[in-house]
């Protein structure tokens, strides 16, 4: 039974059903991103006080849908595609239970549509977090539950595929690092969905009247077990994609398999504790609990990210130095393919995720510092650095890799693709930095009117806050433009991109497999272990990647300085005990 085709450019083997599912999930992700991006424009143009585009009810409605489509639907559809790629394609194995995988996909689609309809109808503008006792329509919760069940099926299809690969011995030795990272993401996803079920199922029953009361504090604790952990799936997934991209572009191997894998293990063990970040100023939760959980048990998950922060660019540096880019500290980086959006997207995501997202996240997750940051616009600024740039830009970069590989199309408007990561990250960075500033001045998140028009009492933010929000508005619009460029390139490539195989037609772009004749391989050759490395030294002073080490130290210095600046700021507010 022939069911594999081999990619003539890369030698990847694609299982017919896995390939169709990857396409379908990727297309659903792109549609979600389109919705989220259009809505983002409404949000940012309303928060820009001089423009103040939308009326209050529409603003909260748009903000709810923006958050859910961007943070849940876009990301998780894409992650399911990554799980299938990292299992079936990388391990050269057939996908487990493709019918179940399609069922999962169908449930995700139904759930996403149902939830969007609920928000569109107008009685479910409760924000992504839907804090009880504020209540949405029952199908708001039901949509999320169905989506999560679908995603859970995807996780089990991934795990089943790993088992099949192991039983059929489709690869030698251990799992590749990228698949190992995807497995990390999958394990965190199962924990996340379990938390989601524990809180959303009772909340749904409450919304239809079967349960009389949902405790507001308990809701927050458990909801964030899902809400924060779902962002940790992203971290594990996009770090895996970083390893994949440096492998494809530079033939890079991890500096040390042991170190990188241990770092992933630390994610599994500790990242989930981070739901505490959201309840640091809540009543009824003890300081001991907050300190232990908010720091992921002594910052061991932060340690893991700092390790990846060194080993990802470090592995790339080692590979580049081996190719002869050995001049000075940074020739390996200067001579990198900056015009290739796969590279520039990945590297900008890495830098912005680490320097802005990572540092601000740890600072505001410090128990006491959270007092000066909780629920200010600093918070969305932080998670736009981690998710909207770190994860999203990584997935965009991966898309540019997948379009020729999976969809067998050349990129449409390559010049636009070349500029896209720069426009997107410049816009987003501008927005993020200025929102961080506004948050420090106390500007609230999820707030329609910083003028408080019509309130019985009055309050004025300092003039600087308005300026900061206006510049953030400009940045946000630029970011949306960068997102639009991504969608133009992606959709354009699927519709009008040059076909790399004659068989790749219009329908093939949307999940329909290519003609049977393409799939002429019954069983791919077994995947061999990576060749052993001849011992060579390219770095200096026993350092394989000195340039990366300098970058890492720069990160640490920024981190330390910014961390203590915030303690200093905290020390200036009213004493509370």
């Amino acid at each position, binding site marked *: 039974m022939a069911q594999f085709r081999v990619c003539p450019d890369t030698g990847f083997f694609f299982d017919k059903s896995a390939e169709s599912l990857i396409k379908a999930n990727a297309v659903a992700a792109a549609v979600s991103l389109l919705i989220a991006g259009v809505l983002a424009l409404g949000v940012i143009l309303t928060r820009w006080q001089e423009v103040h585009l939308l009326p209050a009810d529409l603003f909260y409605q748009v903000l709810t849908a923006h958050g859910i489509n961007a943070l849940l639907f876009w990301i998780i559809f894409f992650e399911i595609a990554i799980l299938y790629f990292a299992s079936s394609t990388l391990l050269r194995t057939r996908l487990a239970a493709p019918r179940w995988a399609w069922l999962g996909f169908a449930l995700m689609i139904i759930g996403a549509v149902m939830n969007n309809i609920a928000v569109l109808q107008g009685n479910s503008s409760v924000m992504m977090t839907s804090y009880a006792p504020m209540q949405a329509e029952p199908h708001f919760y039901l949509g999320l539950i169905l989506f999560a069940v679908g995603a859970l099926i995807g996780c089990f299809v991934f795990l089943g595929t790993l088992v099949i690969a192991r039983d059929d011995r489709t690869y030698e030795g251990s799992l590749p690092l*990228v698949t190992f990272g995807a497995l990390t993401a999958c394990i965190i996803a199962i924990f996340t969905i379990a938390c989601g079920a524990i809180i959303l199922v009772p909340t749904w029953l409450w919304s239809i009247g079967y349960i009389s009361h949902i405790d507001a504090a308990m809701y927050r604790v458990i909801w964030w077990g899902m809400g924060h952990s779902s962002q940790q799936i992203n971290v594990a997934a996009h770090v895996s994609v970083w390893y994949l991209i440096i492998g494809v572009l530079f033939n890079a191997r991890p500096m040390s398999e042991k170190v990188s894998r241990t770092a992933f293990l630390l994610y599994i063990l500790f990242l989930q504790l981070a739901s505490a970040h959201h309840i640091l100023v809540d009543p009824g939760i003890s300081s001991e609990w907050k300190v232990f959980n908010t720091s992921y048990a002594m910052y061991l998950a932060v340690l893991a990210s700092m390790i990846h922060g060194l080993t990802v660019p470090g592995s790339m540096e080692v590979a580049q130095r081996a190719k002869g880019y050995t001049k000075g500290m940074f020739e390996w980086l200067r001579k990198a393919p900056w015009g290739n959006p796969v590279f520039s997207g990945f590297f900008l995501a890495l830098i912005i995720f680490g320097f802005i997202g990572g540092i601000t996240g740890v600072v505001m997750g410090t128990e006491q510092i959270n007092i000066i940051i909780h629920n200010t616009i600093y918070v969305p600024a932080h998670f736009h650095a981690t998710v909207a740039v770190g994860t999203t830009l990584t997935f965009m970069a991966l898309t540019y890799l997948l379009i020729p590989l999976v969809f067998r199309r050349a990129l449409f408007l390559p010049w636009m693709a070349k500029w896209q990561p720069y426009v997107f990250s410049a816009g987003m960075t501008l927005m993020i930095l200025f929102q961080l500033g506004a948050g420090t001045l106390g500007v609230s998140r999820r707030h329609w009117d910083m003028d408080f028009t019509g309130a019985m009492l009055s309050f004025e933010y300092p003039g600087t806050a308005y300026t900061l929000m206006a510049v953030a508005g400009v940045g946000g619009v630029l970011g949306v433009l960068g997102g639009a460029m991504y969608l133009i390139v992606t959709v354009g490539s699927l519709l009008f991109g040059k076909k790399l195989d004659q068989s790749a037609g219009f329908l093939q772009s949307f999940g329909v497999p290519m003609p049977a004749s393409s799939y002429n391989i019954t069983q791919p050759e077994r995947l061999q272990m990576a060749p052993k490395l001849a011992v060579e030294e390219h770095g200096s002073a026993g350092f394989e990647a000195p340039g990366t080490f300098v970058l890492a130290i720069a990160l*640490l210095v920024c981190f330390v300085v910014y961390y203590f600046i915030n303690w200093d700021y905290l020390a200036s507010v*009213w004493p509370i005990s």
Partner: protein
Amino acid sequence: MSSFLPPSERIWWNTPIGKQEIIWIGIALVWCLIMFLMMPYWHIYGKQNLSNEAYQTTPAHYQVKVDEMVAKYKVGEEAGIPVVKPPAGSDVYMLGRLWQWYPILELEQNQSYRLHLSSMDWNHGFSLQPVNINLQIVPGYEMVLTVTPDTAGEFTVVCNEFCGIGHHLMLGKIYVKEN
């Protein structure tokens, strides 16, 4: 290419780790421990720490306490909301409801007060501006903290947890008088 190929060593966990990685892991671990210890350190030596004092309550029960304080210490009214001046060192109460912080408090500079906060309906966010102290106010829970306003002037409580269509109308006031 081994980032997406099986590792070149079957027993990959026995391969030696490079010097650079060891040094970085060491530095990062030390930094992580410093950050961890900063939080207990601040509990002992810092002045901005939330108390662990909180009680389960009901809106009706909490409302009674607020009303008692208002009846006892009311000194005026602003925009229909009573202004209350409780004695220094006493228990003062504020509640959040759609869409109002109630009542307005008048405090003395450099005096300590036991501030009680709760919500009558949904989640609200107590965001004291321009001091920038932000607390989550959860219905059914009464949070108690000791505050010592060390600056005088007019301070505003902005609601910074989304609480429906009138969220942006929800302001409160705390006046701190020099003494």
